[in-house]
């Protein structure tokens, strides 16, 4: 009797597996790692991507740039120094503007990944920024200047590789004023290390600003708190809100 039940169970499992394989074969599901969920960088790269001690600007950190140095062209250094001097007003964070890529990935706010076989979408709490990473279509023809660039993805084994071009020259890498030009080319690599940790790498190439490509690397952490959800960080309205211009009118009594 027990043997019969075991056989029946095995048969059921076998049939289920066959159906599961079939659904993969017809493209109803795919065998790619599932990056879906709510993630956040836990580092201080948003303040400075290079190694830095704590200061009035923010917490200290080991930096995320591989090798700890940025290969600025001599001609590009004065702009970096100017950015540093004006950072408190000129940085996109100070103005609540879109932070660009790769910076949006390590803004200190959570973001959510929505994965399908044809597009990986990302929704960020900071400024309700989004990325729509199309997997089966080429970059649109330029010249285009988009604050978040144009992202096109592909799977290399278990790694999502995203090619990003069509930037503006308005966004920086951090509050310290490290910057790029509209000619920047970013290649990102998202690799799940285990269900709750993801390796994030971005290789940056920009012949107007840097003498060679360089790479940043960090871990993204999954939010595992029960019922965690993205809220809103619409800082653009904070001044107006504080001035009392937004609260809904109430009946005077």
């Amino acid at each position, binding site marked *: 009797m027990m043997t019969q039940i075991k056989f029946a169970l*095995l048969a*059921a*499992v*076998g*049939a*289920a*597996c066959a*159906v*599961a*394989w*079939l*659904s*993969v074969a*017809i493209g*109803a*599901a*795919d*065998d*790619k*790692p*599932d990056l*879906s969920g709510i993630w956040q960088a836990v580092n201080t790269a948003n303040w400075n991507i290079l190694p830095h001690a704590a200061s009035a600007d923010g917490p200290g950190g080991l930096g995320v740039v591989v090798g700890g140095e940025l290969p600025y062209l001599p001609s590009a250094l004065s702009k970096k120094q100017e950015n540093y001097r004006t950072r408190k007003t000129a940085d996109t964070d100070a103005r*609540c*503007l*879109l932070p660009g890529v790769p910076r949006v990935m390590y803004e200190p706010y959570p973001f*959510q990944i*929505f994965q*399908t076989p044809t597009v990986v*979408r990302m*929704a960020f709490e900071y*400024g*309700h920024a*989004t990325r*729509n990473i199309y997997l089966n*279509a080429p970059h*649109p023809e330029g010249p285009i200047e*988009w*604050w*978040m660039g144009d992202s096109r993805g592909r799977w290399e084994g278990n790694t999502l590789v995203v090619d990003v071009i069509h930037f503006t020259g*308005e966004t920086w890498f951090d509050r310290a004023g490290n910057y790029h030009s509209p000619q920047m080319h970013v290649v990102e690599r998202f690799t799940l290390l285990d*269900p709750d940790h993801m390796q994030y790498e971005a290789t940056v190439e920009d012949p107007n600003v840097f003498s060679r490509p360089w790479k940043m690397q960090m871990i993204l952490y999954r939010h595992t708190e029960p*019922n965690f*959800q*993205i*809220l*809103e960080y*619409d800082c*653009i*309205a904070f*001044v*107006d*809100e504080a001035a009392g*211009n*937004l*609260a*809904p*009118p*109430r*009946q*005077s009594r």
Partner: protein
Amino acid sequence: MKGATMRNCIGFRAPLVVAVVAVAAALLSVVVAGQAPTIAGQWDAGAGQANYTLEFGWPPEHAALMAGKSTQRSVIVDPPDGRIPFQPWAKAIRDERDKLHTDPARMKSKDLDPQAKCYPTGVPRFANRAGPVITIFPTHVLMQIEYGHEYRIIYTDGRPRLPSQIKLWNGDARGHWEGATFVIETTNLNGYAWLDVIGSFLSDQATVVERFRPVDANTMQWTGTVTDPAVFTRPWTMGWNYVRSKGQETQGEIWENACVEGNRFPEWDAIYARELAPK
């Protein structure tokens, strides 16, 4: 991870629950791949001139500016007179905003449509804009519109609501399915967003119930019912149909609408400089 399930299949070590889930998922995928109408996908604006006024289409001056014709049509289906059932004090405020909205010299920040400042649409006005792009997942639904790269994440997994202290532009949305119709109940609104250009509004006490119903392969009916005893005399409902987008202009993709970054209403910069900028 689906990969892990399949590795288990090879070794016949998968527990029965995995098998049952796999069968259910396979059946579901067949249903989804079928021809049943769905709200998933990209939709073109259905609201017509409702973003300007919910009650009467473009006013004559605006129609002239747009070299077009006013529909003079209300999108409000209940009450039958097509008017928002404002309490008298609230109607007076809305009408004053309507008078001021074409007079930027007299306008103060509080008189200007938050959308002209590139702030979030709020709910229900999210539905007035072009789009949405709807993606359905087992525990949540993602809706995106091009305007200001806005998105809504609507949970369908029965989780509790956010604490009432947390008020948001687009509120806290919980959804459920009635067949192929998606029903969203939104609370926790901050009441900052207007309902149209001329200044119709709700408060942070409002509840908005929306129904997204696929009528056929290319048509989606939307209704939004607003209940807010602080502002209205009764609940009221607006509605329109969306048409499935052919997406020619952006090859079916969502392209960047960087509103805050530079596409603002030009008068807003002047008002901001007058009132809010550090002197």
